[in-house]
């Protein structure tokens, strides 16, 4: 280690250097004050620079990997909040069952655009394990003059999540967006919401800090490419393993109805909040569900569909269940599709129904 030459040393530096060295190495109140001031200043600078706009631009650098839907959905949702798309847009929210049923955004847009005879844009905000509360938070970002169709993807699983999941989401948000709708849902269920101060960096610190390491890695390796369809190309799950998985999944859900009723009420409030956008039409779309899944749920599935259909009628919102468009061999497990042909069948069935709505919006 380098040492300061001592007095008498032939290499003795000038008094100017000695003074500089003393200032540099000796602890002092001035240096301590400056240290703290610089650290605080850097935090303030970061709070000013880290904005939703920056996160929207850097979404692909914040993703942990290609399957990190939540980073991509955050960036897309901020885009929707900041500027309305120029053409009629289809926004899809929902969980992985819906995500894996749909073709890529461009292909989906081409299909609908072809049937509607007008160019459309598709923004897919579906994420693995997305809850209806997170769907509500994403839709809360739509700009007031947004024009298009919102497709709310639902499933028997999504509509029966426990409020404990919401408590976890409020404590450790997976999406980097603040939503009054989400906060209100939490408060309604008695879940304490952390105080919001209106500074993005502070309000979203769990989301942002949890991705610092991914950011550092991606800045060196380049942005992450989304790889949304994780089940594509896989071999179907062994029927026995599938049956066990579905039975376990269903056993962990509240099928008696309390959670379902709560979700219907939330969905109703989502529909109410979307009414402020005059150019928005809403559709509730059932996610694909394999025959084996429906067989295990038996009356549970039929009851779910019946109740969803009744809800749609009551709220005058279309409820579509096009799961029959998908063949059994297209499924990897109970709802995730493993073939692009299956995705095309499911997307096409939705596209045909969406086209007239978009035609009306475009005229």
């Amino acid at each position, binding site marked *: 280690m380098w040492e300061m030459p001592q007095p008498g040393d032939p290499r003795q530096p000038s008094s100017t250097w000695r003074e500089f060295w*003393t*200032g*540099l190495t000796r602890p002092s109140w*001035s240096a301590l004050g*400056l240290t703290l001031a610089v*650290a605080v*200043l850097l935090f303030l600078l970061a709070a000013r620079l880290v904005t939703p706009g920056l996160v929207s631009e850097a979404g692909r650098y914040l993703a942990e990997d290609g399957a990190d839907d939540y980073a991509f959905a955050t960036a897309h949702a901020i885009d929707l909040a900041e500027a309305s798309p120029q053409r009629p847009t289809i926004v899809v929210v929902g969980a*992985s069952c819906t995500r894996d049923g749909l073709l890529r955004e461009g292909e989906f847009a081409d299909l609908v655009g072809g049937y509607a005879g007008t160019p459309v844009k598709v923004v897919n905000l579906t994420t693995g394990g997305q809850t209806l509360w997170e769907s509500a938070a994403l839709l809360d970002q739509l700009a007031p003059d947004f024009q298009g169709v919102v497709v709310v993807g639902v499933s028997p699983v999504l509509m029966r999540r426990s409020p404990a999941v919401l408590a976890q989401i409020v404590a450790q948000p997976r999406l980097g967006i603040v939503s009054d709708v989400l906060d209100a849902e939490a408060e309604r269920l008695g879940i304490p919401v952390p105080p919001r101060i209106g500074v993005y960096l502070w309000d979203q610190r769990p989301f942002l800090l*949890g991705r610092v390491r991914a950011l550092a890695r991606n800045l060196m390796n380049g942005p992450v490419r989304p790889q949304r369809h*994780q089940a594509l190309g896989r071999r179907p799950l062994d029927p026995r393993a599938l049956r066990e998985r579905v039975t376990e999944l269903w056993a962990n859900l509240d099928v008696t109805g309390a959670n379902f009723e709560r979700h219907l009420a939330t969905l109703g409030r989502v529909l109410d909040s979307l009414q402020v956008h005059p150019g928005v039409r809403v559709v509730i779309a059932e996610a694909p569900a394999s025959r084996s899944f429906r067989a295990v749920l038996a009356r549970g599935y039929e009851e779910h569909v019946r109740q969803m259909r009744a809800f749609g009628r009551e709220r005058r919102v279309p409820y579509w269940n096009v799961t029959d468009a998908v063949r059994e061999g297209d499924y990897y497990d109970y709802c995730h599709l493993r073939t692009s042909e299956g995705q095309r069948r499911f997307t096409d069935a939705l596209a045909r129904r969406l086209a007239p709505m978009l035609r009306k919006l475009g005229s």
Partner: protein
Amino acid sequence: VTRGRWARVTGIVLQGVTLGVLLFGALVMLLAVQADARLFRYQVF
């Protein structure tokens, strides 16, 4: 004397800025590791 004083002030400023940047970096990394451990992981399925 003036040159010596300026040299000492420069040294103090350099010390303060360096330690300030290091303190900021260390705090961010500490919070990042904590947040990463608590992160509610996304689900692939």
